[in-house]
């Protein structure tokens, strides 16, 4: 293990510990430590869920397409893909924990599941996806589970062949799950008739395209970090770059399509959404559009793909853009209080009924119809803890498991 990796692991470990302690503190004091309140009931944590779910996707999409469509060039990235998928999907599940008011009651999900609830579907698909990515990774690693890892392997005649065969067989299932987690996660939002910003059939396909973009970027970045930007990988990276670019374009198309429809319809609510998106959050919004686009475009440039710093910057830009995009799911949904009406006698006014914040601090306003949410430090620390978890998991796996392909392709 090199020193960089080691210090990264220590750092991640440290962040995880701090975040865990912070979560314990939050458990004691309640979610009052976050900056969410009644009218803004989901914040950074749930944005994190959407973000990690997105990251998780690319991995299996990529890996399964290698076997499904026989894209040989990408083979060295297959295990990495499955690994990042596993790390991110478990991170996605973990980030929900601090968002839950009573995590000690999570068992109720099993005891009393309500199958009408998209959240239950999501729990199911996320778990299945985690299982799938773990299994996939395992199958791909099978041939190399030798030596001190031998105890992990199973007895089959031809390991190599077995691995290939099952990787192929599992590919469509994995792809289905990969798409499934996005669709279902998107449904959590898009089924909410209360929130016009979300209530759109475009949300699920958009989630898928974002996921393909960012998930692939994550694999690309991980691959570059693991293997370097040597010439032998350029073919693969080029292909990834292409996928990413196309996915970003699809995402932007779907998003703009949604915005145009909202803007065109011009009802009070959609106007408010536009105001929030283009008013208060205009810079963030520009960034969410520009960053992935520029990032993806840069990744199409051979010069970028050949330079580690440039490649990292471009992928980072794209990932950051997507993160901001995920964060921006919330404001236009929650800053726009859903109980909006046109008061009798006032034909041209849209008015939303203020909501009590639910958080008591002496002297503060009680009822809110506009709220600028900025995550609290507790939320940021916990989110960073989850990021650190994913990182640590990947690093550990790379360190301990035969993730990286030793021989040249």
């Amino acid at each position, binding site marked *: 293990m090199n020193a960089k990796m080691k210090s990264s692991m220590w750092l991640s470990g440290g962040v995880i510990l701090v975040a865990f302690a912070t979560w314990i503190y939050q458990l004691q*004091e*309640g*979610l*009052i430590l976050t900056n*969410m*309140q*009644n*009218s803004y*009931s*989901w914040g950074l944590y749930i944005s994190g869920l959407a973000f990690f779910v997105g990251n998780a996707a690319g991995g299996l999409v990529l890996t399964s397409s290698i076997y499904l469509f026989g894209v040989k060039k990408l083979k060295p990235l297959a295990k990495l893909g499955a690994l990042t998928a596993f790390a991110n999907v478990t991170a996605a599940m973990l980030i*929900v924990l601090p*968002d*839950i*008011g*009573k*995590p000690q*009651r999570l068992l*109720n*999900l099993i*005891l*009393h*599941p*309500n199958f*009408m*609830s998209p*959240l*239950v579907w999501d*729990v199911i698909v996320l778990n299945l996806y985690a299982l799938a990515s773990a299994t996939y990774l395992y199958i791909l690693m099978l041939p190399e589970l030798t030596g001190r890892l031998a105890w992990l392997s199973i007895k089959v005649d031809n390991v190599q062949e077995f691995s290939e065969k099952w990787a192929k067989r599992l590919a469509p299932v994995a792809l289905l799950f990969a798409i499934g987690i996005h669709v279902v996660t998107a449904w*959590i939002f898009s*089924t*909410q*008739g*209360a*929130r016009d910003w979300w209530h759109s059939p475009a949300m699920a396909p958009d989630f898928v395209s974002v996921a393909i973009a960012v998930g692939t970027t994550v694999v690309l970045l991980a691959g570059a970090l693991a293997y370097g930007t040597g010439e032998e990988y350029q073919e693969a990276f080029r292909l990834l770059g292409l996928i990413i670019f196309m996915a970003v374009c699809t995402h932007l198309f779907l998003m703009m399509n949604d915005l145009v429809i909202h803007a065109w319809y011009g009802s009070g609510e959609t106007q408010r959404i536009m105001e929030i998106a283009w008013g208060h959050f205009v810079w963030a919004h520009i960034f969410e559009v520009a960053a992935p686009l520029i990032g993806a475009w840069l990744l199409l440039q051979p010069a970028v793909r050949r330079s580690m710093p440039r490649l990292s910057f471009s992928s980072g830009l794209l990932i950051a853009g997507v993160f901001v995009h995920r964060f921006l799911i919330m404001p236009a*949904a*929650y800053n726009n*209080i*859903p*109980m909006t*009406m046109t*008061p*009798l*006698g*006032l034909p041209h*006014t849209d*008015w939303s*009924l*203020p*909501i*009590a*914040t*639910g*958080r*008591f*601090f*002496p002297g*503060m306003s*009680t*009822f809110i*119809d506009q709220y600028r949410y900025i995550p609290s430090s507790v939320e940021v620390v916990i989110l960073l803890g989850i990021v650190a978890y994913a990182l640590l998991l990947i690093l550990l796996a790379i360190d301990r498991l035969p993730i990286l392909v030793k021989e040249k392709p």
Partner: protein
Amino acid sequence: MKMGMVIDLEKCIGCRSCMVACKQHNAQPPQTWWNRVFTPGSHRHLTPPAKGVEFFLPVHCQHCENAPCEKVCPVGATYHAEDGAVLIDYERCIGCRYCMSACPYGVRQFNWEDPEKAHVRSEYQEKYHYGYPEDHRHEGRLVYMPLRPKGIVEKCTFCAQYRDKGELPACVRGCPGKARFVGDLDDPNSEVSVMIKQRNAFTLLPEKGTKPTVFYLPPKAKEV
């Protein structure tokens, strides 16, 4: 039987007594309000949005027949009681706040912290807190507690603790405008059913398809 409420906006004087009755009887800690009365069009209650226009709108849980909050609740903590009221099982709720997001009326309130702490911070005398003082179970499920644990969601229960004793909800008893009525929507001859039929009753956000069981009677237009 189907519980229903009618609020007559002609009679509603915007006094907010129902808010306070609700808050007090249902032991809502500082900064938590299940019931809100505002002046539509204005950010300030009792300040007209425009010269010569002002009416008042009380809003609490609409006890929707097609309740998104119930549908999204992953653990079935939010449920329809037999009489049509939408209730929350305080023992079941995991505090995911999905329901808050899904409710178009913004009526759900979360316990961001231990209510006792909030009471202490607002400097009530030693451990004093107001409200109906006992836990209450409806159809066996815990739907009222004077001190709710932190981390769960709460909202208007149609005053389950009082209804089960044959008493009217606190907001109805507390409304000096005599603007609130409750009754059986299934009975076409009940006071509420008759009012709904005869007085152009409307519901809030009908476009959301939630089918509220809280109905509003429009204020009388001013004859100038």
